[in-house]
């Protein structure tokens, strides 16, 4: 498996070439370099996946963990050292496939979407950087390598959100994303340090005796790491950056803020899953509750947003909540069935990446066509954009959980796992799944049905996007149609053993019915031009509507916490202390040095006679001293 190094090398090379020489290239050449290297990466990833899963299983029925590369990078002690390498196991191979596929599609798509943009080469350079970082994150052999690439992912996300750096909103959004995730990563770092201190290693499988000794601290370490994961995966209350991150170019939203980066938190929890399940089941349950609340919160906000990318952003948050819940509801006993949620979560990660990327890319086509993000500017677009319409519909059906699309299968597994955990959790998640179907179809009808906005279209008729943009849509739609039939349980499961996915007919039927009802409700309310029911509801509960529209004032709450409490109570006194005491001390030192220099300096007059006077005085003093 030595060729897996190419997976990391190619994007970083492409980034270097584009970043250093990109401005000298034409747009076409730069785009081709990025896209071709990504194409190669995709091919290598598929090869890796094929080779990996074609390997015979080990005697205990699991797939072997491979480390084609692992070299020592920073040695601290004999036991504690940071390595850099490539780790292949079922989830990392699965992530390789997901990331390279979506990234490749986005590269192709961006050809059309970003055509003629200023900074086209820079855009592709950043995309390569991001792909490199994300791939490095998933193949990390230890928690610290993961952290390094984690931050790299954060940086490239920052760069891409702020791609339109002349737009104040984009700058603010990129800063917000960076600061919020960075703030959360502080937890991650502290968690890593605790982990390293007590386990004596940064690898994912510490020695048994260290685990025994550090078992008390392990839940804390994992909990703190989850804070980092929650930041990256936009879990409540650290989700506030993700909706704003939509200021970036839409393909970037598709790649980073829907399919890959935001699931890093899920991936992190999954990566540490054996530790969670054995030593910190309570922490795992916290993950589940946070995920469930986030899923509900985001779904309720998504129901009233008018910016289509915001709707998708909240839907992403909600779906990641689903994945977190699925991980969190796992139990150690019995190990095989109890780990169903793990499989479900990874499965949902996989399918969600595909259909959410498809949704975002479709949204990108729509925005491209009408030059607006607002739903009010849309309506009736199905005539103009047939390919986008069909693929978008497929994705909506998938996310709503309608068979036979992929989302149905993965969501069904999640719900089964939730019911196994507790019926309450199961029902809550089912309801959230219904809300998902509702707001997705609200979005769908708002965009493609209803009357078109004549005033807007008068100047500019919407048109279908070029092939570079529709081709990825079709590919992803095809994947969405068939991905559900992948025997995912054979590849990725909690305990590594093969697991046959079987549909629990009760759960499947319930969720289907809920989804269909929700879609019907959405159809009833939103399919027509006038939406009396929606308006009536908004009038009936103006407070609630307003609160949901304003995302339940979470941004304001954060602003209150940061500005009013942290800035005023902590930062201002600290700043005062810094300015007056620390700086004062330093200024005093500088002043004292300066003053003494001013005093001494005239002595250095350059008059040799003055020097000799001092010389004689010195001799006299020395003589007197000798006489004593």
């Amino acid at each position: 498996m030595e060729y897996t190094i190419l997976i990391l090398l190619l994007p970083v090379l492409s980034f270097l070439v584009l970043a250093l020489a990109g401005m000298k290239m034409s747009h076409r050449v730069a785009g081709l370099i990025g896209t071709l290297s990504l194409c190669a990466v995709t091919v290598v990833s598929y090869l890796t996946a094929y080779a990996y899963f074609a390997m015979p299983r080990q005697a205990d029925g699991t797939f072997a963990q491979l480390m084609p590369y692992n070299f020592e990078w920073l040695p601290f002690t004999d036991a504690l050292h940071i390595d850099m390498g490539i780790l292949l196991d079922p989830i990392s191979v699965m992530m390789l496939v997901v990331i390279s596929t979506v990234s490749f599609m986005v590269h192709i798509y961006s050809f059309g979407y970003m055509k003629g943009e200023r900074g086209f080469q820079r855009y592709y350079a950043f995309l390569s950087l991001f792909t490199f970082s994300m791939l490095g994150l998933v193949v990390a052999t230890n928690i610290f390598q993961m952290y390094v690439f984690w931050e790299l992912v954060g940086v490239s996300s920052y760069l891409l959100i702020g791609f339109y750096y002349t737009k104040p909103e984009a700058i603010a959004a990129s800063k917000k994303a960076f600061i919020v995730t960075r703030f959360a990563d502080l937890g991650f770092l502290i968690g890593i340090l605790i982990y390293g201190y007590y386990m004596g290693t940064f690898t994912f499988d510490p020695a048994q005796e260290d685990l025994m000794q550090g078992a008390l601290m392990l839940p804390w370490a994992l909990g703190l790491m989850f804070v980092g994961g929650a930041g990256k995966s936009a879990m409540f209350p650290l989700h506030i950056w993700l909706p704003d991150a939509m200021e970036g170019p839409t393909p970037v939203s598709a790649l980073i803020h829907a399919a890959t980066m935001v699931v890093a938190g899920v991936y992190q929890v999954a990566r540490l899953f054996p530790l969670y399940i054995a030593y910190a089941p309570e922490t795992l349950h916290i993950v589940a509750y946070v995920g469930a609340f986030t899923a509900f919160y985001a779904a309720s906000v998504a129901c009233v947003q008018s910016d289509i990318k915001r709707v998708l952003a909240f839907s992403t948050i909600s779906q990641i909540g689903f994945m977190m819940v699925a991980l969190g509801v796992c139990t150690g006993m019995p190990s095989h069935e109890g780990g169903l949620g793990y499989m479900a979560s990874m499965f949902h990660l996989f399918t969600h990446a595909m259909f959410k990327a498809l949704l975002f890319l479709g949204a990108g086509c729509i925005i491209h066509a009408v030059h607006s993000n607002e739903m009010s500017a849309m309506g009736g677009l199905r005539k103009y954009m047939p390919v986008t319409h069909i693929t978008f519909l497929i994705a909506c059906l998938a996310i709503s959980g309608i068979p036979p699309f992929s989302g149905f299968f993965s969501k069904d597994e999640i719900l089964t796992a939730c019911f196994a955990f507790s019926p309450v959790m199961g029902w809550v998640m089912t309801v959230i799944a219904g809300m998902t179907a509702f707001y997705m179809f609200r979005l769908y009808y708002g965009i493609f049905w209803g009357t078109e906005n004549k005033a807007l279209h008068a100047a500019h008729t919407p048109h279908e996007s070029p092939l570079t943009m529709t081709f990825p849509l079709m590919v992803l739609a095809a994947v969405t149609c068939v991905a559900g039939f992948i025997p995912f349980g054979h590849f990725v499961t909690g305990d590594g053993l093969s697991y046959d996915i079987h549909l629990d007919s009760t759960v499947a039927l319930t969720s289907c019915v809920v989804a269909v009802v929700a879609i019907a409700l959405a159809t009833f309310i939103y399919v027509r031009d006038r939406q009396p029911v929606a308006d009536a509801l908004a009038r009936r509960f103006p407070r609630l509507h307003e609160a949901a529209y304003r995302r339940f004032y979470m941004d304001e709450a954060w602003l209150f916490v940061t500005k009013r409490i942290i800035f005023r109570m902590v930062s201002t006194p600290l700043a005062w202390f810094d300015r007056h005491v620390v700086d004062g001390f330093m200024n005093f030192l500088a002043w004292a040095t300066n003053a003494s220099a001013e005093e001494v300096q005239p002595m250095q007059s350059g008059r040799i006679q003055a020097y000799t006077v001092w010389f004689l005085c010195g001799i006299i003093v020395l003589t007197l001293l000798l006489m004593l």
Partner: protein
Amino acid sequence: MEITLQQIVFGVVALMMAVCSVLSVTTGRILRAATALLFVLFGTAGLYFMLGYTYLGAVQLSVYAGGIVVLYVFSILLTRSDKNMNRRIPRGRWFAATVAVVTGFFLTVFLLFTNGFALNTVPALVEQNPAGVGEALVGMDKYGFILPFEAISVLLLACMIGAIMIARKH
């Protein structure tokens, strides 16, 4: 305790030298200073004679009194430096210099008196034979000074060339 002729002569010469050396650093006229220096040099030559170093005295007279002072007088006349001899150094510095000098002087005198020279180690007056001096100067045996002599010759040559190079018109 009777006073010998030698003591009288020494006393007179010493007094003249002390007065002239003080005069040469305090007078306001550069030419007077040079003249006072000349008298000091004469007195030094006299001391050498009294010590019995007649050759040294002769050299002192010819080189110093005859050569160097003439050079001074020439350069004084060449540079017309007399007119700004009256510029005084700042008072503080003058005060510091005076204090340092007086302190140093008394300290040295104190050391001289406390240092064991009180013993009467005066030898009989022996005339130093100039031939012996010459032989020692170019001698290569234990008390020969050929190496310093050569060194000083080269130094003098270098100084001469240097002086010509520096002073010549460009």
